[in-house]
């Protein structure tokens, strides 16, 4: 009995040793002992290995292209989830002091959240400060502050209006170009017998609602990463009230629905004719194409975002992402190379545009004929980049987000839901958000200006 036990212990110890040996094996001689398992295949086993978390569609092809072109650096890619899922893991790794990847895909709106936690490496010393003219000005301002470059822009979300041309035609309504026309079109569609909604206003669309406010000139945060204990919070402004009252009115009149975004019900409504308009970022069409139960007769067209003042159009951005080097990067120089060079290549961008539906924030791709003239079958061959998104991206001025953006979005969702469901008005909702953000900022040790 006792001998049997001893043998069992010995066997399991041998098993464990075998496991750890196996875990070491792919590293090879001289390569950094790295226990991370890569989703992609490493082509040059001896090269410096850089770990990457990214959720881009088609990222595997893009990583393979990079690895094939580089002998000295190889990317080891993992999909750690999209957006909030990945951020949760990254935040935990930062708190733990270990476990973060070398390079990480982040939305630009979340960058201040991590710069204040010292989670990102400034890329300027690695040559990123010389890349400014490769990117649209607004996109560059979103990833940099002062002399520091926190991330390299990759894809953007200039916002346009995608609409169902067949529905507008059927009910004899002209697609709107201003928000006044939009409200009128909503009523006209209903009067003509359309039983859907002109569009949906999602209370949980954090970034989307920020973009709509920003179009009216809303700049809620005054924050500079160089002065990390100072912040100005001005959520409850006339501009925000104007935009929110506008939507509250349309919702109250039953012309706009207020379903939660990103649920399966919402996805179906997007494509089955329940909503006639989808106000969307440039990645929106790719999102629509992936949805099922679509109307077979749907004829989608893209148009510029409706304006408050057509004489002074303002363009906005929703989402998109950038590549940042984390503060835990083992070889910051190699990691910076990956962040700067993963997408600086036309071949890569053809994959990104054609297979992944991304909108590049890289001037050489934005200026290339194959991109500007590209005809999208989804839009019946319309050149949507030329017609809508290129202008929107070029005119987007940038936006300052808070260093606690997830909290700000959650509070906004709560307040907007209260407005839509209950007696609260647009002004109440904005005042609630303002109060909770100021209180939170003070608890976090900020001096609120």
């Amino acid at each position: 009995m006792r001998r049997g036990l001893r043998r069992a212990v010995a066997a399991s110890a041998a098993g464990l040793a075998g496991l750890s040996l196996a875990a070491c094996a792919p590293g090879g001689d001289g390569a950094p002992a790295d226990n991370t398992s890569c989703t992609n295949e490493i082509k040059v086993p001896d090269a410096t290995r850089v770990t990457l978390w990214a959720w881009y569609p088609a990222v595997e092809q893009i990583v393979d292209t990079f690895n094939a072109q580089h002998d000295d650096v190889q990317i080891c890619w993992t999909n750690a989830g999209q957006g909030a899922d990945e951020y949760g893991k990254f935040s935990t790794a930062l708190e733990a002091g270990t476990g973060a990847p070398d390079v990480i895909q982040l939305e630009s709106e979340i960058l201040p959240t991590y710069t204040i936690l010292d989670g990102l490496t400034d890329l300027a010393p690695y040559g990123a400060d010389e890349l400014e003219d490769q990117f649209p000005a607004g996109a560059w301002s979103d990833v940099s502050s002062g002399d520091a470059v926190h991330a390299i822009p990759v894809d953007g979300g200039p916002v346009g209006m995608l609409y169902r041309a067949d529905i507008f035609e059927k009910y004899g309504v002209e697609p709107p170009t201003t928000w006044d026309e939009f409200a009128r079109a909503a009523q006209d569609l209903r009067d003509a017998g359309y039983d859907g909604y002109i569009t949906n206003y999602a209370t949980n669309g954090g970034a989307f609602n920020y973009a709509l406010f920003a179009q009216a000139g809303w700049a809620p945060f005054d924050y500079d990463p160089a002065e990390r204990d100072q912040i100005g919070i001005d959520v409850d402004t006339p501009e925000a009230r104007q935009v929110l009252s506008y939507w509250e009115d349309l919702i109250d009149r039953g012309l706009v629905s207020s379903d939660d975004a990103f649920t399966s019900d919402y996805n179906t409504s997007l494509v089955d004719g329940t909503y006639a308009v989808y106000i969307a970022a440039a990645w929106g069409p790719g999102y629509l194409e992936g949805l099922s139960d679509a109307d077979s007769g749907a004829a989608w067209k893209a148009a510029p975002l409706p304006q408050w003042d057509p004489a002074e159009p303002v363009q906005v951005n929703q989402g998109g992402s950038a590549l940042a080097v984390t503060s835990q990067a083992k070889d910051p120089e190699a990691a910076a190379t990956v962040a700067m060079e993963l997408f600086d290549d036309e071949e890569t961008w053809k994959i990104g545009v054609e297979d992944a539906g991304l909108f590049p924030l890289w001037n050489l791709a934005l200026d290339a004929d194959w991109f500007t003239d590209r005809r999208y079958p989804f839009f019946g061959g319309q050149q949507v980049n030329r017609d809508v998104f290129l202008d929107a991206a070029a005119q987007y001025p940038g936006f300052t987000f808070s260093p606690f953006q997830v909290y700000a979005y959650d509070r906004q969702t709560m307040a907007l839901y209260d407005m839509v469901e209950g007696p609260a008005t647009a002004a109440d909702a904005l005042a609630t958000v303002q109060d909770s953000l100021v209180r939170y900022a003070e608890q976090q040790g900020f001096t609120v200006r």
Partner: protein
Amino acid sequence: MTSTTTERAAAPARPGRRRGGPSLLDTKRQWWGWLFLAPFTVVFVLFLLVPLAYAFWLSLHTKGIATGGESVFTGVANYVRVFTDADFLSGMARVGKFVLVMVPVQIGLAVAIALVLDTLATRLSKASRLLVFVPYAIPAVIGALMWGFLYSPRFGPANDIFGFFGLDAPDFLSRDLIFGSLVNIVTWQWVGYYMIIVYAALRAIDPSVYEAARLDGAGDRQIAFRIKIPMIASSMVMIVVFALIGTLQFFTEPTVLRSVAQGAIPTTYTPNMYAYSMAFSYSQFNYASTIAFALGILVFIGSYIFLYATRKQSGLK
């Protein structure tokens, strides 16, 4: 803690020897006892006591994001903050409401079903027992996802069912109905489990008790309420404590349903969800630990009051 249990367990085995020192045999036995306890003790200390102590240590410190990530000892300041935090208190009030509604509904149903199954002796009773128990075998996340689809205005059956009678289906995921929708999911999931415990306790009663009661002229209903239920009181107390603690720590179902009802279920819906988002969405690990500890204290107090109030029934007196 482990040593007291061993001593207490060993005590009846050596009456009368308490005054003298333990014999050599006893010492040897104790070593064996420790050896057998060791695997559990290691896991218990490593994965429960140490993390608890660490979380408590965290809860006494504060790290504001604006103060350069420096952790400062602030004593009970976080506890003062949590017990004046409107989000935490409203979450506590909400789980309190869940306790008031969900626990009686679950226990009532479980006992009713168990009593009925106990009196049946047909093949049907075995089949029904299994059917009532099956939801418990489905992982909570899968169950909640499934209900999310059933509640969906577009994919769920409610529209068809109500439409058949010419009515509009209610939106089960709206703010007004989400409470009932969650009660329904949890009840569906847990009634079978509680039923099995109650049923097992009922089967353990000697049938001769029923015969005696019948001879004394007791009817079926009197046997159920005057004989069976008092005799299984200790099991009932146990399942109520399970239900009470589970409900105060409510997390999985609302978190899963939140993916389809972000408005109706905010991140502060229950204290556990609040702690989770504090830690993993906002990087507030210190305050999250405080919320978790505050919840733990309240759960402890709640369970203690309940166990004290029912000490006669449970036999803990």
